[in-house]
């Protein structure tokens, strides 16, 4: 590795001030610090430093995303083969696994390449313009964006959404660490509002329109997600035949049974379907202390609590879905583990995190059940709590401040009473 470092040392003058390629200094700097943690030593304050840096932190989040990514890739192939009747639900999951992974990979890899390519390109551009080092934040955002996309989303749309999110949600605020909204969710929200036709309805299984046109589509496969199906029951009586037909899919033998939803063998965004894979990632994040368990736990409790309240109301079939079933559907788990916990856009105080997570979880279920136009309530809920996170923190800070003021007033009282 000495050789590599010597090479870097040799070409460095070209990139430094006055060198031929000084315009590309940020690129050189990013690559060098990517390969080698610099030999900078501490010079004021503490003489020793913790081994962790932002690169390690981000890398662990990526690692935590791997189960969801692998499962999602497999599942896209699995769903496609199921929808055209090539395999049946009674086949073992490993049946034709390479074919499934292959179909998935052909769809997923380009999404990842586009997301990273566009996002990092913009990061380099801004870092060059502002003359600061390239921050690691996008390493995670760039992986999150593909995982919350429908499988057949056109690549140009992903490119536009990524560009929008990086510029408007992050760079205009000053880059990594300064953003108010979660970058990946901003990309998703952009597509949702800019291209509503392409981003809703029966798009959640690869090639579903074409399969339908060719008459290959198996009965019962519509390309809608569980939440899309459930939204259809809103406004209908609990015991109406339409509602019963939908709810039968959520029974123990249905397509969206609790077990299927937990394992993730249902249609949906690439990374969001498998609660199991997501929880594996959550375990790593909590174990390493990188993800906030406070937010995850309170988010889950908020979701369960709100679903339980709906159970009590039971005004339509959607509301009767058991709380544990609600939280394994849609993007709830993915949002809880990977989106709500983004430390920059979340609440920053420990107490604030409890409140923030709880509101987020409750809102996710509230929005998806009450407003069928937004089946994916999690996205809206998290963007909303991102916005109110500083407000939550403000109240926590105020409580801390007023504790101190009370103590001061009490001390004043004692000193005046002793003076008398």
């Amino acid at each position, binding site marked *: 590795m000495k050789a590599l470092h010597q090479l870097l040392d040799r070409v460095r003058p070209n990139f430094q001030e006055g060198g031929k390629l000084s315009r590309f200094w940020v690129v050189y700097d990013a690559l060098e610090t990517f*390969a080698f943690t610099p030999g900078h*030593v501490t010079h004021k304050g*503490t003489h*020793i430093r913790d*081994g962790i840096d932002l690169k*390690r932190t981000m890398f662990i989040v990526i690692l935590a995303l791997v189960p969801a990514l692998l499962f999602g890739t497999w599942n896209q192939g699995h769903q496609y083969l199921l929808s055209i009747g090539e395999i049946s639900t009674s086949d073992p999951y490993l049946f034709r696994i390479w074919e499934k992974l292959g179909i998935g990979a052909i769809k997923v890899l380009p999404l990842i390449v586009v997301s990273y390519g566009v996002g990092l390109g913009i990061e380099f551009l801004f870092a060059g313009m502002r003359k600061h080092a390239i921050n690691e934040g996008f390493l995670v955002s760039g992986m999150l964006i593909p995982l919350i996309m429908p499988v057949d989303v056109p690549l140009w749309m992903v490119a536009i959404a990524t560009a929008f999110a990086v510029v408007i949600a992050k760079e205009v605020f000053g880059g990594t660490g300064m953003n108010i909204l979660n970058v990946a969710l901003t990309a998703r929200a952009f597509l949702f509002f800019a291209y509503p036709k392409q981003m809703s309805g029966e798009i959640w299984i690869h090639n579903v329109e074409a399969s339908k046109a060719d008459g290959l589509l198996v009965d019962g496969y519509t390309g809608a997600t569980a939440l899309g199906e459930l939204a259809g029951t809103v406004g209908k009586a609990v015991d109406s035949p339409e509602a019963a037909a939908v709810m039968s899919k959520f029974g123990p033998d249905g397509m969206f049974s609790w077990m299927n939803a937990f394992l993730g063998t249902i249609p949906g965004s690439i990374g969001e379907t498998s609660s199991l894979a997501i929880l594996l990632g959550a375990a790593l994040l909590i174990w390493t202390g*990188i993800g906030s368990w406070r937010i995850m736990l309170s988010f889950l409790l908020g979701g369960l609590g709100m679903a339980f309240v709906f159970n009590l109301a039971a005004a339509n079939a959607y509301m009767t879905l058991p709380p544990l079933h609600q939280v394994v559907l849609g993007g709830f788990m993915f949002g809880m583990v990977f989106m709500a916990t983004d430390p920059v856009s979340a609440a*920053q105080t420990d107490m604030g995190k409890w409140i923030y997570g709880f509101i987020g979880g409750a809102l996710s279920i509230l929005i998806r059940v009450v407003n069928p136009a937004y089946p994916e309530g999690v996205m809206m809920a998290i963007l909303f709590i991102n916005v109110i996170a500083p407000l939550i923190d403000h109240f926590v800070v105020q409580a*801390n401040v007023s504790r101190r003021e009370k103590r001061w007033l009490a001390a004043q009282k004692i000193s005046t009473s002793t003076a008398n």
Partner: protein
Amino acid sequence: MSRTIRIRKGADIRLQGRPAAQVVDAQRSAVYAIQPSDFHGVIPKMEARPGDRLQAGDVLFRDKEKPEVVYLSPVSGVLKEVVRGAKRRILAVEVEADATDTFRSFPTLDPQRASREEILAAVLQGGLFPFFEQRPFAVPANPADRPRAIYISGFSSAPLAPDMGTVLAGRMEDFQAGVWALGKLAGEGGVHLGVRPGDSVYAGVKGVEVTAFEGPHPAGNVGVQIHWTHPVNKGEVIWTMHPEDVVALGHLLTHGHYRMDRVVAAGGSEHPSPQHYRVRMGSRADVLMGGAAYSDRVRVVSGDVLSGTQVQAGGYLGAKHHQLAMLPEGRDPKFLLTEGWLSPGLNKFSLSRAFPTWLLPKSKEFALDTNNNGEHRAFVVSGQYEAVFPFDILPVHLVKSILANDIDGMERLGIYEVAPEDFALCEFSCTSKMELQHIVREGLDLLQNELG
């Protein structure tokens, strides 16, 4: 019986080269020095001139703003040089030492009988006043104040900390005399002593309120101990003093000599013989290095490794430092796969558990170098400081208010209670490599200037 308070937040950083619990006399340094920078914010006005013959206890300089506060020579000898830096700022006052010390005699008094005025006058004249620090602002105290209470932290919890039983062995009579004197100087809050549960060295000390503190570093920081007993409110003043200075104070009053003995814990992975060394204050640091020479591969730190100052070749042990550490310099770049951020990290120490080393038994000791282990970044990670900051204060919000020069915010968020050293562990653990102690010091300075 004393109270026991359990501190939960914090962390012990286990470094190799823990000093053994034995004391050896260090070789006598040829030159001793007092560095005004050890007394934050003091502007010295020289009294002695180069070439003057001095006894231990003769005045070197006084505080320009508080002329009654004098700084004395710790040894007898000849004033060698007043070392000046940029803008003629005095960096060090060097005294070429005699082979053995002769002491200037101060009048003695009985600290239990003397009045507050008599004791204060003796402390000022006897050169021990500079060793009082005050909260708020963590600066040398002002003799015009009458502090609500005086706090002594009876132990250090920092990495490679001295063993107080070893440090104070045979010196408890002077310590007790010093405590009686502090009792006279303190206001209604009295004198507080923080100890470790079961600490035998302080058994039988009278005239103090003893509180035992369990838990990890920074439980030994005096600021933490104040916070958990009687926190500093706006408008109040608390004084603090190190146990070794309490000993010197007792010795001054009962024996009439300015005898600044230090038992220094010298350690670290690069130290050839980690143990305690007995020296006089102001000694050159090299006599504590166990025979090792200065090199650019080794960093010598006066004070604890989290908040001390770097000693350059030929430099001195700080006047308020009771530790010396020798650490490997970390100037080599670390390749990502073998030692960097993508490596398994089997030799990396972190409070975050992002490296598997947190699974190792608690007794495992690490040889940390001085590498920054990453580059400076904006705040990203949250909750990190809170885990090692045992105050009912929101550290990130306080630091941000300082960065924004928001005086009102700093005040409301509790800056009166903190010293830079209280943020040392936060700084250590910071993913974004913020220089928190520097930031906090600037905030304290700003506030002190604003309040006049």
